[in-house]
């Protein structure tokens, strides 16, 4: 019942498509494309493939399909690895790589494996480090406790939402791996076995399943072998499929496990007995008879096939169904001839399956409704310049500008000097020395002002264009102007304005991006007005104004003197002159500030222009989102014409269901907006993102709300309402999708096809449906029924035929003929010898080869033992510069024959010539004192050899005590040498 941590490895383009479809089914149930204990990897020989699917919201990287590129940019690196003289020489690679492959045009593989299986395998080997790391990291991820805990939490929540009691345990800790892809091309077809071998031997994955699509049987059978001599794509697919099936047949066959090169991965020979796959399923676009996946125009439709594989994977990935399917496999494994070879030597371990389903497309409906709502919201955001309420917007702009102007100008013009403002400094200076000024005769005031308050630093001079105060203001202003601070400052300022725009948009004052653009234009008008008030040139020193003080007539007013008001008049004029002087200075200060403010205000306009351009971008994004949403809605509302999936709807049609779903969010816009725009970022910032991210964010917000409402749908209920004819035409298609001679397989061989019906929702209703289908003879009465609460939007009929050998496929003979019709055809075999994996051809040779290698290994081990235990057996020949060790054996007629032993080639030569193993006899005899049959005795435990020798001597009445001691010592040394203490079986050289 428990879900198992699972890695889904898609290999090649078909693998990617299968996993994409699989994620949509997972999303249908869990509303996330994968559980934390799932991981999807795709190994792809094409460059630049990325995982995108508009069905999903913005995904965390861990939720995406991880695409590992396996490309070779330059085949020279491969040449180095098969060059015996090169430091990167790789014996394992050189053993299988057909060298012709290196003559490929372009000297690289970056755009797929070009339908060449050997190229697929080579791409794997050359990128093994990255691929291995990705697989290992994925394994660590899926079994990590955190991820298992997260999955448990998620499942508990799911069961709680469905008011169901969760099973226990929810999550297992035994990882499993699915490898999916197509055997027709080069990538998956060339890589799958090596990847599985490595998973088995190095990663020690307990369960490895393969689901592979093959070429369409009708395609293969209908081909004319003569025409197939031409290098066309279809012939390639057939040949590749058959070559890959042959390889699978070979590696699954337990009798081939010791053949050199049978169990290899990119790390070399892996040396294990287990087959790389626990179970391999094959599917093609056509089943037996006339059942075939075709599109509306009658052509083979691979999408439907991929979808069927994805649906099968999905059902395995959720607990109940996985257990049901695992039970099928267990049943098959238990039948007599499973995993045995048939009369032609092919192993009966493959299977094929097919399924048909009734699906309530809950997510499709929710997504379509969400898209339509997204498009409507986008329309609102785009707005209409003709209908915009310009007066109101203008008022908002004025209000916001006035609210910000003091802050903006205060920030722009910092007139502080030594910690206090220049304005205060001027006023204080005059205030402090007012009495001294007043005490001066009027006539002296003018000159006093020129030098006020000190001759060295008069205020008048300080306020000149290059004066002290002017410099202070310019420098203060220069601080934000220089460096990046100005950009920061303007950014902040524009941020304030954008914030205002955002605020206005959020509270509904501005209803569209168009409104926001008008608003910014109005703001710019205000700034332009402010700029107009700023002097273009530095304000000149207004000498005339100061001179007017002097021209007031001084104190020589006889008219006032006559009537005694002269002093009073003079005092008054002096006070006014001082006030005027102060005004002049402050006025001059303001002029300077305005002069300097002109630049930043212009910059501010430019900043607003930039923001306006950003709004243009935003508008573009919103328009793109609207278009994408409408496009996707159209795609979603067009129910796919899948032959094996019948769609059912609550209201009878998808359009009505979508309309009903749209109504579910009516009046809930605040809730939707809160989901769309996170509280920490404003609407505009959200819209400034990539359009696909914005679209995904908006759509998922609507979709989540709608899915919440659609959660309680029950496909079983809707299926019960279907007519007999509809049920019949749909579920009669649930047959294994390989063209098989089922009668022969089932009647002659006695392996029955297994049937399973899976459904969710009401269990009693499901049983009623199953009874009905049984009565209609759509399923057998004894078919398994699996109630899967997690798949309440599905009713599936699944059939699987197991214990198949490759020659059970109807295309076997024709496909083999097509492959054979192109002997030596470049690339179909992933081995230098085209028939290396063919168990029908050359098995005797393979066994001889295997025996020869075993004998060479055996001889090497004995030679090693002899070097330590009886070095006297070796003689030296050759000259001093190039001495060679030899072993001398008496041959026929008593003639001595010397065998060189140092080089591997020497040992191979001995095995070739020394068919009666005299060399080994000599070594073993010297070691143990026995002379005969040492070679045949060798595979047995050393202890047995020793015991045999001891018994022989005992029988002869010899004193064996001393001999036993010697033998025991020698055995100890041999044990240590062969590194298997206490285990006589492994002590024997192999």
């Amino acid at each position, binding site marked *: 019942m428990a879900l198992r941590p699972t890695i889904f490895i898609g290999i090649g383009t078909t693998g990617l498509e299968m996993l994409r479809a699989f994620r949509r089914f997972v999303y249908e149930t869990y509303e996330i494309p994968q559980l934390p204990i799932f991981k999807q990897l795709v190994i792809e020989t094409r460059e630049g493939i990325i995982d995108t699917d508009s069905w999903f919201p913005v995904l965390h990287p861990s939720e995406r399909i991880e695409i590992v590129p396996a490309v070779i940019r330059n085949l020279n690196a491969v040449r180095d690895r098969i060059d015996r003289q090169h430091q990167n020489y790789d014996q394992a690679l050189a053993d299988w790589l057909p060298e012709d492959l290196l003559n490929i045009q372009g000297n690289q593989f970056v755009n797929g494996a070009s339908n060449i299986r050997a190229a697929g395998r080579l791409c794997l080997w050359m990128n093994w480090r990255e691929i291995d790391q990705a697989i290992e990291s994925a394994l660590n991820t899926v079994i990590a406790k955190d991820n298992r805990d997260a999955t448990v939490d998620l499942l508990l929540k799911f069961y709680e939402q469905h008011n169901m009691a969760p099973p226990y345990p929810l999550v297992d800790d035994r990882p499993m791996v699915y490898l999916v892809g197509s055997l027709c091309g080069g990538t998956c077809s060339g890589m799958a076995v090596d990847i599985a071998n490595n998973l088995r031997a190095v990663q020690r994955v307990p369960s490895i399943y393969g689901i592979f699509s093959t070429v369409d049987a009708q395609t293969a059978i209908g081909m004319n072998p003569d025409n197939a001599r031409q290098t066309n794509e279809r012939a390639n697919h057939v040949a590749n499929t058959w070559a890959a099936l042959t390889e699978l047949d070979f590696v699954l066959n337990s009798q081939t496990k010791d053949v050199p090169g049978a169990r290899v991965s990119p790390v070399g020979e892996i040396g294990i007995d287990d087959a790389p796959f626990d179970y391999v399923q094959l599917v093609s676009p056509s089943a037996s008879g006339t059942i075939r996946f075709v599109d509306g125009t009658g052509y083979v439709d691979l999408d439907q096939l991929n979808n069927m594989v994805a649906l099968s994977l999905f059902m395995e990935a959720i607990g109940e169904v996985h257990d049901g399917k695992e039970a099928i496999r267990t049943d098959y494994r238990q039948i007599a001839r499973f995993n045995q070879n048939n009369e032609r030597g092919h192993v009966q371990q493959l299977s094929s399956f097919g399924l048909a389903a009734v699906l309530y497309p809950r997510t499709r409906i929710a997504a379509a409704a969400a898209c339509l709502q997204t498009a409507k919201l986008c329309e609102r955001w785009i707005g209409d310049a003709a209908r915009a309420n310009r007066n109101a917007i203008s008022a908002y702009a004025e209000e916001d500008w006035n609210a910000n102007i003091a802050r903006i100008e205060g920030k722009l013009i910092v007139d502080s000097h030594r910690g206090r403002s220049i304005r205060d400094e001027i006023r204080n200076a005059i205030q402090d020395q007012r009495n001294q000024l007043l005490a001066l005769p009027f006539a002296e005031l003018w000159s006093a002002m020129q030098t006020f308050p000190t001759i060295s630093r008069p205020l008048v001079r300080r306020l000149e264009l290059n004066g002290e105060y002017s410099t202070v203001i310019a420098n203060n202003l220069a601080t934000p102007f220089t460096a990046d601070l100005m950009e920061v400052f303007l950014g902040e300022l524009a941020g304030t304005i954008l914030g205002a725009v955002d605020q206005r948009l959020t509270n509904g004052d501005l209803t569209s991006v168009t409104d926001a653009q008008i608003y910014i234009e109005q703001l710019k008008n205000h700034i332009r007005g402010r700029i107009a008030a700023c002097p273009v040139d530095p304000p000149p020193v207004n000498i005339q104004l100061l001179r*007017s*003080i002097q021209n007031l007539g001084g104190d020589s007013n006889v008219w*006032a003197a006559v*009537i005694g008001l002269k002093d009073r008049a003079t005092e008054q*004029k002096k006070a*006014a002159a001082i*006030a*005027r002087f102060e005004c002049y200075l402050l006025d001059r200060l303001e002029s300077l500030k305005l002069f300097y403010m002109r630049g930043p205000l212009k910059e501010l306009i430019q900043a607003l222009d930039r923001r306006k351009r950003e709004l243009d971008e935003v508008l573009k994004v919103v328009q793109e989102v609207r278009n994408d949403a409408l496009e996707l809605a159209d795609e979603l509302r067009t129910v796919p014409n899948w032959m094996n999936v019948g769609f059912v709807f609550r209201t009878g049609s998808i359009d009505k269901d979508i309309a009903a779903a749209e109504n579910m969010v009516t009046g809930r816009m605040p809730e939707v907006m809160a989901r769309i725009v996170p509280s920490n970022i404003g609407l505009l910032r959200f819209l400034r993102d990539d359009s696909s991210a914005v679209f995904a964010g908006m759509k998922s917000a609507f979709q989540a709300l709608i899915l919440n409402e659609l959660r309680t749908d029950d496909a079983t209920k809707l299926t019960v309402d279907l007519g007999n004819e509809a049920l019949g035409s749909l579920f009669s298609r649930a047959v294994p999708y390989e063209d098989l001679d089922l009668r022969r397989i089932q009647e002659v061989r006695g392996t029955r096809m297994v049937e399973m019906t899976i459904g969710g929702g009401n269990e009693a209703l499901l049983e009623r449906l199953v009874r009905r289908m049984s009565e209609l003879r759509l399923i057998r009465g004894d078919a398994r029924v699996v109630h899967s609460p997690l798949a309440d939007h599905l009713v599936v009929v699944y059939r699987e035929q197991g214990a198949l050998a490759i020659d059970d496929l109807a295309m076997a003979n024709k496909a083999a003929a097509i492959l054979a019709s192109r002997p030596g055809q470049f690339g179909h075999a992933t081995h230098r010898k085209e028939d290396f994996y063919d168990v029908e051809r050359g098995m005797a040779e393979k066994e001889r080869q295997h025996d020869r290698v075993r004998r060479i290994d055996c001889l090497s081990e004995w030679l090693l033992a002899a070097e330590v235990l009886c070095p006297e057996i070796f003689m030296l020949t050759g000259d001093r510069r190039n001495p060679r060790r030899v072993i001398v054996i008496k041959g026929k007629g008593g003639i001595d024959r010397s065998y060189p032993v140092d080089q591997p080639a020497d040992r191979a030569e001995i095995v070739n010539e020394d068919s009666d193993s005299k060399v080994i006899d000599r070594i073993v005899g010297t070691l143990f004192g026995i002379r005969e049959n040492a070679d045949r005795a060798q595979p047995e435990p050393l202890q047995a050899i020793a015991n045999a020798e001891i018994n022989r001597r005992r029988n002869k009445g010899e004193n064996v005590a001393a001999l036993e001691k010697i033998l025991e010592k020698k055995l100890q040394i041999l044990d240590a040498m062969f590194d298997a203490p206490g285990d006589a079986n492994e002590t024997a050289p192999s």
Partner: protein
Amino acid sequence: MFNNLLEIVKDLGPVLVSISQGKVPLQNSILVGYLLAYAMAFLLARAWSREDSAQGMHVDEAVYAAWATAFVAHIVFSVACAFIWGSQNVESTPAANYSIFSLFITIDLILAYMAWKHRVAARQEWHTLIS
């Protein structure tokens, strides 16, 4: 003109004596009144300018305005005197008196004009200063 003025001044002493003795000829008493009007104009100008400046007016402007007004008042007063004088039909009035009278009126006009011009200038300057 200057000699006539000297004669008037020379005449003034006996006139004042005559007035004090109650034997004053009518035309002489008019002359005295004319002179006294100057004193009154002075007092008016002083009083007005103090009052105006106390009320916040620019002191110079108030002074000039007061002086201009005082001179105009003096002319009005002088013309009034001459009218009264003429109505007495005194034949023995010395011709020089008319000349002097005309001179004084002219001086009055000039002074009033000058004061007014000063007032306008002072007003402008003040406004420039305090604006």
